[in-house]
């Protein structure tokens, strides 16, 4: 394994690792949970699109428009392959945030007699683990429709407590929207049972795959979920591109979210009818270069092999958790071993505020994230003001963990704790 998968070799594909950081240090990038770095092939793919094929897709009879369309639709096919989805089920948005809002608004826009309509007294189920992006859109939908927002609580390790599943998912439940992996604690949510319960009451299941799709193999057919969202920028791809995947039979009966050009079937001054998916959900000239860039990122991941990526991260997380266990005054928040958890490690150092920890690590070229990680309710539940979070990806290796651990020691010395 080790010999096949070489983060040191991988780093050579990422121009940013040539950069010199504060204090003359090399970049130890442990913030891929926020956004990943990009390999050269992604930057080249975007540039190539602009330099050779740039035109508005689906809108012109000319050669560039043909080429742009085929690049853009080719990117869609790559993403469909990545998720084991049908091509027309893959919708390009600007981000997971947009994808999740799009689903919530589609519910909100549904006519009263539709499968998607939400009435007063209906239920929307989330969990205490959610990122704001998979919480606030549902809060707002509940407010707009009079539905009730309820949630799965978490246990002491930060795992979802399923004991009340039958009280949460009832005949009144219309949507269950859950994260696949916590961006704060790394816990992977065992969704099988929840998906089953959701479908048993005729509700729909939305998966926030922001922290899973970039890190392990996702097969939408096997998962059995109804909608899924993730962001390209966390998966080696460009900024400004996200994925909304939905089952085709659902998509073609949903109200669109953004309206405008290219998503219509017919338009008069007073009325419009909609094209089928994916166009139905892609109003306007799309983020073409970003779709092409994301496809290049997916090809890069596919070449590494998603199973290898997952194995590498699991091993590295195990290594890091062992190191953490030996540190005095440092407390890992969330699962303490690498079982059913991803490569995100949140921790606190007694007596040093996370923001100050991050500042000291920065001095050693180490980039981590600090704060509530857009999961403020989770922080409140855990009784924390924030954590310091290290998150790993394909370009990280044990030397990065070692740098982190020794810089934590320096931080403790600096703040005399």
């Amino acid at each position: 394994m080790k010999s096949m998968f070489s983060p040191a070799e991988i780093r050579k594909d990422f121009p940013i690792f040539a950069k010199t950081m504060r204090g003359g240090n090399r970049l130890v990038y442990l913030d891929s949970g926020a956004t990943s770095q990009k390999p050269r092939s992604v930057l080249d793919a975007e540039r190539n699109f602009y330099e050779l094929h740039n035109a508005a897709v689906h809108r012109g009879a000319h050669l560039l428009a043909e080429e742009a369309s085929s690049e853009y639709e080719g990117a869609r096919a790559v993403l469909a392959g990545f998720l084991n989805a049908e091509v027309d089920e893959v919708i390009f948005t600007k981000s997971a945030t947009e994808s999740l809002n799009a689903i919530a608004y589609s519910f909100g826009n549904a006519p009263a007699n539709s499968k998607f309509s939400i009435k007063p007294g209906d239920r929307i189920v989330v969990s205490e683990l959610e990122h704001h992006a998979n919480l606030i859109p549902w809060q707002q939908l509940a407010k707009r429709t009079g539905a009730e927002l309820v949630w799965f609580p978490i246990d002491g390790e930060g795992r979802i407590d399923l004991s009340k599943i039958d009280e949460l998912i009832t005949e009144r439940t219309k949507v269950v929207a859950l994260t696949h992996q916590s961006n704060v604690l790394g816990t992977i949510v065992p969704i099988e049972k929840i998906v089953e319960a959701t479908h048993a009451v005729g509700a729909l299941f939305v998966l926030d795959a922001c922290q899973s799709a970039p890190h392990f193999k996702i097969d939408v057919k096997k998962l059995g979920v109804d909608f899924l969202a993730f962001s390209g920028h966390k998966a080696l791809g460009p900024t400004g591109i996200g994925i909304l995947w939905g089952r085709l039979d659902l998509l073609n009966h949903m109200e669109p979210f953004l309206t405008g050009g290219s998503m219509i079937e017919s338009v008069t001054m007073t009325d419009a009818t909609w094209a089928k998916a994916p166009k139905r959900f892609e109003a306007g000239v799309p983020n073409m270069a970003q779709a092409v860039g994301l496809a290049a990122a997916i090809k890069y991941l596919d070449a590494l092999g998603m199973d290898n990526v997952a194995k590498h991260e699991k091993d590295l997380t195990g290594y890091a958790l062992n190191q953490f266990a030996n540190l005095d005054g440092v407390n890992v928040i969330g699962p303490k071993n690498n079982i059913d958890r991803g490569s995100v490690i949140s921790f606190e150092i007694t007596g040093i505020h996370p923001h100050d920890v991050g500042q000291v690590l920065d001095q050693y070229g180490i980039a981590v994230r600090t704060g509530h990680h857009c999961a403020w309710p989770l922080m409140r539940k855990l009784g924390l003001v924030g954590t310091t979070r290290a998150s790993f990806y394909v370009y990280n290796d044990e030397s990065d963990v070692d740098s982190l651990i020794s810089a934590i020691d320096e931080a403790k010395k600096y703040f005399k704790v």
Partner: protein
Amino acid sequence: MELDSLYQEVILDHYKHPQHKKLNPSYTAQVHHVNPSCGDEITLNVSMKDGVVESVSWDGVGCSISQASTSIASDLMIGKTLETALATVDAFSQLMSSKGNETGDENVLEDGVALAGVSKFPARIKCALLGWMAFKDAALQSGAN
């Protein structure tokens, strides 16, 4: 010139003199199809009797390719059984997705083979298919009635 592979004489002829382009007031199914990206619209009537296509007639606006293709399709379908007609539509769809690598079977598609060149111009495939898809839709509706 590359253009000539798209605009065969036969096509320009059908475009200038479209066949069956006058809606027959009696029909077993009527459909209205549009091509939203370019605004082409077509109304197409089909009469089926005893599993055979008795008449196809249409009206609409569109480019030379969509007009000629609809003209060719209507002419071709009349007199065919539902089954043969649908198989012919399938043969044409396949030709359209051939990226210029097939010439089409003249025994099956007759004048339709003149549209083979369209398959090299991705943006025009929808134009060529408009009438055929409308026919298929109407024929299936007639069959189901």
